[in-house]
């Protein structure tokens, strides 16, 4: 009896301590000298290391993190993908004032999720100079997969240059880092392969638009060294396994600017988590990880030899490399680099094949009709005398007195109730001003495409339509309204924006607390952009219905049109931006305000769906 009581008392104490468990962490931001390329350079380190220390939290715990700034400039830490109060989000100028030199800021919030995430500076260019680290949150209930070993694989891009210099160079000569442009010799090689007519037509088409099909990455292997957990390729970061074991690899792309194509020759990878959220497992040979995304995969190396973990950059100008090995010091062959891909007319929003030609008006029957237009921006379609409105059938859409970017939901008329693949819409008449050097005349759904340079072999590559959440979403209301934003840029000037307006020229995006809203993005540039909304999940509208993947970063391909849905369940001011660091600094950034009173509808537009009370956090994370 006594023993029983004692046992119960102990159990109670254990339970209470568990409930009240609060992890307390101290992070000190310091300048540190590193040598990753043979030259000593200053890095921004967290607790003296690059990447910073792996933080391991538990779902449900309250975390207290003291961040002390020992730099000579302000700093901040943003908990990437974490659902938390707005004042804990760590974006200077939006969530708080930043952490001044010498000061300590204490973050305190309850962890309401589990999975693989990361944290990084949101100040200046510190993210480029080493201030990033993995964040792993253990779930309260068992995960639906099992594994014997667990490794974090964090990618990043390192430059010996001062990031301010990199940015200035891009502003002065945007093609500065591209050493894979097409030359006179490429021209003659193409003539030999494709003939004069096709080669000249191709050069004229790109020339007409003043665009370069080799412009895939703004910053390349010319200056970058690509790291795995802070180690350059020759250092060969190694993870050990015993043959037959199941190894979980938590991939995090902490790069400032670099998309990576990840594969482990000889092994299939089963993707079990995307952006920290469990998904229905998909087995692939390769996946592209956009900047700031995370993917967890499980591999089962059966042979008693080493496997190369190979992450080639999207522009093929370099790679990050590590090894899975049965014993230390073992390594395997490094795959030969693949040729640099080229952008196509589809990346310019001119995929005539995908266009229902029956719907097109006369005057655009020819793919050679690359006509410029009044503002001087590139546009492929001869749209001079074309009535776009009639083509999108705006007549079927009811216009309220909403601001320009808002369109009431009318799925049938809009044609995107479910994201029909390859669906094509004509671009509207707004060409976004001087900040946009092109518009995608016919943006389309590209979620099932693996992306530039991938998918032309029998290698199975992960695509966004593979992602299905393991559980139905927590908010299955249809969205009440749609906010359409265009991703815009001017390559020559290295200007990046939404709707042709840089952050400094823009108004915040207002959301009403509790509303379900659909964001639709049209990429009017020929680059990929990883979009990151802080504070709320972005549920990608990829045809998975109730099983939409919950993401914190959504990549938008060139000339792509895609949508994601958001439940505005987080009061306050949040950042929303392209996670390519120099694009963000150039202006591809917005503030999103979630408020009880709706300030977004000026002029009294009527609601199209009844309001429901916002869900509590308990409901949301069931």
């Amino acid at each position: 009896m006594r023993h029983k009581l004692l046992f119960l008392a102990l159990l109670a104490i254990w339970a209470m301590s568990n409930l009240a468990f609060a992890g307390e962490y101290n992070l000190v931001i310091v300048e540190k000298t590193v040598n990753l390329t043979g030259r000593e350079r200053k890095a921004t380190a967290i607790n003296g290391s690059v990447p910073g220390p792996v933080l391991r939290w538990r779902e449900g715990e309250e975390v207290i993190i003291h961040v002390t700034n020992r730099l000579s400039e302000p700093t901040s830490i943003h908990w990437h993908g974490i659902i938390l109060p707005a004042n804990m989000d760590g974006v200077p100028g939006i969530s708080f004032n930043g952490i001044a030199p010498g000061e300590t800021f204490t973050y305190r919030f309850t962890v309401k999720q589990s999975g693989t995430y990361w944290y990084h500076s949101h100040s200046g260019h510190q993210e480029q100079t080493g201030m990033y680290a993995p964040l792993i949150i253990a779930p309260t209930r068992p995960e639906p997969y099992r594994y014997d070993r667990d490794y974090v694989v964090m990618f990043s891009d390192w430059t010996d240059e001062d990031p301010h210099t990199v940015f200035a160079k891009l502003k002065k000569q945007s093609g500065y880092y591209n050493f894979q442009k097409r030359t006179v010799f490429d021209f003659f090689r193409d003539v030999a392969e494709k003939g004069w007519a096709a080669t000249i037509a191709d050069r004229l088409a790109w020339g007409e638009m003043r665009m370069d099909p080799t412009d895939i990455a703004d910053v390349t292997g010319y200056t970058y060294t690509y790291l795995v957990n802070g180690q350059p390729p020759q250092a060969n970061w190694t993870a050990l396994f015993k043959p037959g074991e199941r190894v979980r690899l938590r991939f995090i792309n902490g790069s400032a600017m670099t998309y990576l194509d990840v594969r482990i020759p000889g092994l299939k990878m089963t993707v079990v988590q995307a952006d920290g959220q469990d998904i229905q497992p998909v087995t692939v040979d390769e996946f592209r990880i956009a900047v700031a995304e995370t993917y967890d995969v499980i591999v089962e190396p059966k042979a008693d030899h080493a496997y190369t973990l190979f992450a080639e950059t999207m522009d093929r100008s370099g790679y990050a490399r590590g090894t899975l090995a049965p014993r230390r010091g073992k390594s395997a062959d490094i795959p030969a680099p693949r040729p640099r891909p080229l952008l196509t007319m589809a990346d310019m929003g001119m995929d005539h094949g995908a266009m229902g030609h029956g719907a097109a008006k006369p005057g655009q029957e020819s793919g050679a009709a690359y006509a410029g237009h009044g503002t001087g921006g590139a546009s492929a379609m001869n749209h001079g005398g074309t009535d776009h409105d009639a083509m999108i059938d705006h007549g079927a859409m009811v216009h309220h007195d909403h601001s320009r970017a808002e369109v009431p939901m009318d799925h049938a008329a809009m044609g995107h109730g479910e994201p029909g693949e390859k669906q094509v819409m004509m671009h509207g008449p707004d060409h976004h001003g001087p900040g946009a050097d092109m518009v995608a005349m016919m943006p389309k759904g590209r979620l099932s495409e693996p992306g530039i340079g991938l998918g032309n072999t029998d290698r199975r590559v992960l695509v966004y339509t593979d992602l299905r959440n393991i559980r139905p979403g927590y908010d299955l209301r249809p969205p009440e309204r749609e906010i359409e934003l265009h991703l815009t840029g001017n390559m020559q000037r290295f200007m990046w924006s939404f709707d042709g307006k840089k952050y400094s020229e823009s108004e915040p995006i207002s959301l009403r607390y509790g509303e379900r809203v659909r964001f639709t993005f049209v990429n009017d540039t020929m680059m990929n952009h990883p979009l990151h909304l802080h504070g709320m999940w972005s549920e990608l509208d990829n045809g998975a219905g109730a099983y939409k993947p919950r993401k914190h970063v959504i990549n938008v391909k060139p000339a792509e049109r895609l949508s994601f849905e958001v439940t505005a369940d987080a009061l306050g001011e949040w950042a929303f931006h392209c996670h390519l660091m120099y694009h963000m600094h150039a202006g591809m950034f917005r503030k999103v305000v979630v408020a009880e009173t709706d300030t977004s509808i000026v002029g009294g537009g009527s609601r199209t769906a009844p309001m429901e009370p916002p869900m509590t956090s308990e409901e949301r994370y069931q």
Partner: protein
Amino acid sequence: MTKTICRWPPLLVLGANSLVSAAPVARAQDNQIFTYVQGEQLEYRAPSDTFSWDIRGWVGGDYHRLWFKTQGDVPANGPVDRGEVQLRYSRMISPFWDLMLGARYDVEPDPSRAYAVAALHGLTPYFYEVDADFFVSEEGDVSARLEVEYQLLLTQRLILEPSFELNFAVQEVKELGIGPGLSDVELGLRLRYEIEREFAPYIGFVWERRVGRTADLARDMGEEVDSPAFVAGMRFWF
């Protein structure tokens, strides 16, 4: 850890700190001001035995810039033959074009002149870089200049740059030896090697020719009408 900060003189750190904290909290960085200087041509010409320069640059953001331009020739053993300086305000008017307004002052040839300048600068389809300038002198004389350049990549670093420049005048300006209509033509072909993007030695050939009434005026003065030259120089920017 503390060592890192101690490396800096404490006063400097204090100064930097107060500057930083005085600044508004991490506002948008998307309207930063940059400075650009480009030595487009810095070359020796033979057989005329002269040095030529063409240096330009700007200070500003994405939309508004203050441009500075200077070009001219100086014989190896003599005073400046031709030398002009321009200051222009530039405004981006479309994705590929800037409208510029400003002033030009010609130190040489004698008599020196001041001009008002209106110009269009930008990139045409097929990647021709164009500078179209219109000038009105203090005497009311109207002239124009069209410069066009093209970059042909032989390799990633070896670049052939054909260019031409045309000068027009509306009326005769006898004291400067300029006749109405097309007054002179300059064709250039320069081959550079970009050791760095910012630094490229080059060699080339330049052919200048005065035409029409301008050529007649030059002949009357006993000057050359035709001046082909081999050039060797340095192109740089920062």
